[in-house]
């Protein structure tokens, strides 16, 4: 063992693999508790109690759900493409987890980011990983060879790529202000200027927030799984843990967009008392992400679903021009203030 650890490459691979494994475990666990969090909050909005029987305050509910799903029969429709049908949920969860390699969760006392990798094009990497998320849904819906899943999948694909455009443009305002695509660089620029970009980039934040909701297929943009029209959308044919895996991916995507919003617009791990205790930045980061997640759940409890033609028109005719306008105004200010 000792001579293995002496080799710097092997030691590097081992350390990173362990860190990655721990992070993925944390992300999947936080998915489980986000689900409980959502059920509890939705229940309170509707004056119900929510899960209460499994463990105190329903805290063991995620474990009970997981056991139930694992023990259910795993069905494959007769006409389905067996290989793609089987691996589509794995692709969905893989693409949702990928973004976490680049997210800085805070800063260590020596100023380096608490992250797996500190990429100089971090935001581009996260956008790229996020846009791969379409594959899990499109392949899952198509390979089922059934009507509802196919309709849900093409709807979902069209919605996700339409809103991805405005999302990409809304982020550029932040890049103009920060002058870097490095995520910890962007948060550092916010603490250096003593302003979170939600203030100067409020329009950008609004567009990001709306598109992020649409990208993660959350209410009021949850048309891919509109029960009244499409049964359950792209995962109608799925059962057992494969069914659950799509939910893992969806909720992890929710956490991802909340993390990105926190990094770009809410100052990342910025907050009081950091001078005395630098690792408190992780706590501030988690707190902001949780606030963002709460707002996403709150919207689900409050807002009705959009109609599909309005959804597409809103993305192309409103969000896209507003995002370009916001980008131009920000660019003009940045360029002229410099001159």
């Amino acid at each position: 063992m000792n001579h293995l650890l002496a080799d710097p490459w092997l030691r590097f691979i081992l350390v990173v693999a362990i860190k990655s494994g721990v992070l993925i475990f944390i992300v999947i666990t936080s998915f489980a508790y986000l689900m409980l969090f959502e059920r509890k909050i939705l229940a309170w909005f509707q004056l119900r109690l929510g899960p209460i029987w499994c463990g105190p305050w329903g805290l063991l509910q995620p474990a009970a759900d997981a056991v139930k799903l694992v023990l259910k029969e795993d069905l494959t429709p007769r006409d389905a493409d067996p290989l793609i049908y089987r691996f589509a949920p794995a692709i969905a969860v893989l693409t949702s987890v990928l973004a976490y390699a680049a997210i800085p969760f805070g800063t260590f006392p020596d100023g380096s980011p608490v992250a797996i990798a500190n990429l100089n094009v971090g935001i581009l990497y996260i956008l790229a990983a996020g846009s791969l998320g379409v594959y899990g849904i499109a392949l899952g819906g198509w390979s089922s060879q059934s009507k509802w899943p196919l309709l849900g999948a093409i709807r979902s694909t069209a919605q996700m790529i339409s809103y991805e455009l405005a999302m990409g443009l809304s982020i550029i305002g932040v890049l103009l202000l920060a002058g870097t695509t490095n995520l910890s660089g962007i948060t550092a620029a916010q603490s250096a200027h003593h302003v979170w970009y939600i203030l100067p980039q409020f329009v950008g934040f609004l567009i990001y927030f709306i598109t992020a909701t649409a990208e993660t297929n959350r209410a009021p943009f949850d048309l891919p799984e509109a029960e009244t029209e499409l049964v359950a959308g792209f995962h109608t044919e799925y059962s057992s843990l494969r069914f659950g895996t799509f939910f893992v991916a969806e909720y992890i995507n929710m956490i991802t967009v909340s993390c990105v919003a926190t990094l770009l617009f809410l100052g990342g791990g910025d907050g009081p008392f950091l001078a005395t205790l630098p690792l408190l930045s992780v706590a501030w980061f988690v707190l902001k992400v949780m606030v963002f997640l709460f707002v996403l759940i709150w919207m689900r409890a409050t807002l009705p679903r959009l109609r599909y033609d309005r959804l597409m028109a809103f993305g192309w005719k409103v969000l896209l021009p507003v995002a370009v306008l916001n980008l131009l105004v920000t660019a003009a200010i940045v360029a002229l203030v410099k001159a």
Partner: protein
Amino acid sequence: MLFSPWATVAIFFVVAVVVALLISAVPGIFTSKRPNRAKSEAYECGVPPTSAMIGRFPVRFYLVAMLFVIFDVEAASFYPWAVRLRDLGAFGLMEMVTFIVVLGVGYAYVWKKGGFSWR
């Protein structure tokens, strides 16, 4: 830093693939498989399926995909410009305004042709 951060991302990717494959392998281990004809039929609200699958779907979805490719490539060209705008100054701003005007003409054309309205 001794190693490139992309080596770290590559290792993270491998770990993520292993986790994803584990998740998709688990359902086969614990579950009993008792398929029958009704179960393995495509779900159509309990009615016997009328056809294997819809063979066609609206061409609008292709149009959305094509528009996305066009505008997304344009959007991607904003990123390097946005990071360097402080150095480029007013010159960089004018260049991008010209670009956006050209882009806007195409956008107006698609709008006029009804490419964005869902009918």
